[in-house]
């Protein structure tokens, strides 16, 4: 994706943007860091865009919204959903961002390479649908689909919701993403098994708050979990209850606003599949209140900020549960 860097230069020198939000090259190929570039020289020196630029940049725009002038940003399809949701929530002014949509075939991550058992990674080359990885212990080839970030495994959409210009082709929503399959599998389990599954996952939580801090939907100036008067500001998962509480409430607070960007799972240092909590809410909302995708447009009301007089009763949980369990 050479075009991205070129575009960044063009936007800065052409005066379309006062700064560009993109990625800064790292020490190695797999560790670019989000960065703000104010000059063409900086872009020339440090800007990078490749298969390992997976981070969702939209949340940084909340802070940049207060800066003077226009920020140009490169958004992948899933990032664009987050941005639209934030604009909808009046956290970002549309006119303060210049959006360059970047078509995406899925992003890769170091974590995926490690999971695939590749040790001592030094560098990589893209070879069609595969990555050739040079390591300390010899070369190896991994299919791109096996090197994908967890959040890209079930891509929901290749459509860039809003943009000022586009690099690559506009895509469509992915009808058969299969992103609810895992949720459905869990729903089919017995309550005992589900409980055991989640205890096993959530008990590893170290309350580092990475999931919360990276989440574009968690945009509160002061989080309830940081409020000493809330009675729930225990920094550590001091008891299994605290972990449950934290994750249930966090998922609930973003329910119907979560665009399913998957950043929570990507950043979890303990590899907890947190997206499965969010997807459960999304799946329920779709099934009970009609299909709804947060961030897909500028005007529909999120399900929890809306109601129908004929909505189902909470007892539906028993009815549906009865069918399943």
């Amino acid at each position: 994706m050479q075009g991205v860097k070129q575009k960044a230069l063009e936007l800065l020198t052409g005066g379309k943007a006062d700064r560009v939000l993109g990625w800064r090259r790292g020490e190695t190929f797999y560790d670019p860091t989000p960065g703000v570039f104010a000059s063409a020289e900086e872009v020339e020196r440090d800007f990078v865009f490749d298969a390992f630029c997976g981070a969702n940049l939209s949340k940084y725009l909340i802070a940049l919204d207060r800066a003077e002038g226009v920020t140009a940003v490169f958004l992948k399809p899933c990032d664009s959903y987050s941005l639209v949701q934030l604009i909808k929530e009046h956290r970002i002014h549309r006119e303060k961002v210049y959006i360059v949509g970047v078509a995406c075939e899925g992003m890769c991550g170091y974590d995926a390479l490690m999971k695939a058992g590749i040790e001592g990674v030094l560098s990589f080359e893209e070879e069609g649908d595969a990555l050739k990885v040079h390591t300390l212990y010899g070369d190896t080839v991994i299919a791109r689909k096996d090197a994908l970030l967890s959040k890209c495994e079930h891509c929901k959409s290749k459509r860039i919701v809003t943009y000022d210009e586009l690099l690559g082709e506009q895509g469509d929503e992915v009808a058969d993403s299969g992103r609810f399959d895992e949720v459905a599998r869990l729903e089919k389990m017995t309550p005992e098994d589900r409980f055991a599954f989640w205890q096993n996952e959530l008990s590893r939580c170290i309350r580092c708050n990475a999931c919360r801090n990276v989440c574009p939907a968690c945009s509160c100036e002061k989080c309830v979990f940081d409020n000493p008067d809330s009675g729930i500001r225990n920094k550590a998962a001091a008891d299994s209850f605290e972990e449950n509480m934290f994750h249930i409430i966090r998922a609930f607070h973003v329910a119907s606003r979560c665009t399913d960007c998957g950043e929570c799972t990507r950043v979890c240092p303990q590899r907890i599949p947190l997206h499965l909590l969010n997807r459960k809410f999304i799946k329920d909302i779709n099934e009970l209140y009609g299909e709804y995708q947060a961030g897909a447009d500028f005007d529909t009301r999120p399900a929890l900020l809306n109601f129908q007089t004929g909505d189902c009763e909470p007892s539906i949980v028993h009815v549906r549960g009865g069918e399943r369990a």
Partner: protein
Amino acid sequence: MSVKTDWKPTIVAFCCNWCSYAGADLSGTNRLQYPANVKIIRIPCSCRLNPMFVLRAFQRGADGVILCGCHPGDCHYTTGNYYARRRMTLLFSMLDYLGIERDRTRVEWVSAAEGAKFAATMNEFVATVTALGENRRLEDLRCKA
């Protein structure tokens, strides 16, 4: 786990000030019986029930949590209970998804005139939770020490 025969569940009932709280009163003045282990917490509207309250109740020793509000369409604030209904539906579904027994949570619409319904609902809910036994999956051991 050995279930003590004399064990009685602790039930927290969040009741809307404008309907079910009065309904509870009415059932009292009518001398209708419902178990004493139902602890009523008055809230200004069913939609005041923050999901955190439900979890907090379980943490602090509740074995079952029930929300009582005005019948849909009768909310004192016009639409509060409609929002509460969606929220509780999703919350209960999430608790179920996490493997928490779904019978520990319930929503029931009880008007100020339905003293009998209030008592009947509580009796029934207490029986359901008693059958389930102690809340183990959402407990906080520190609160039981």
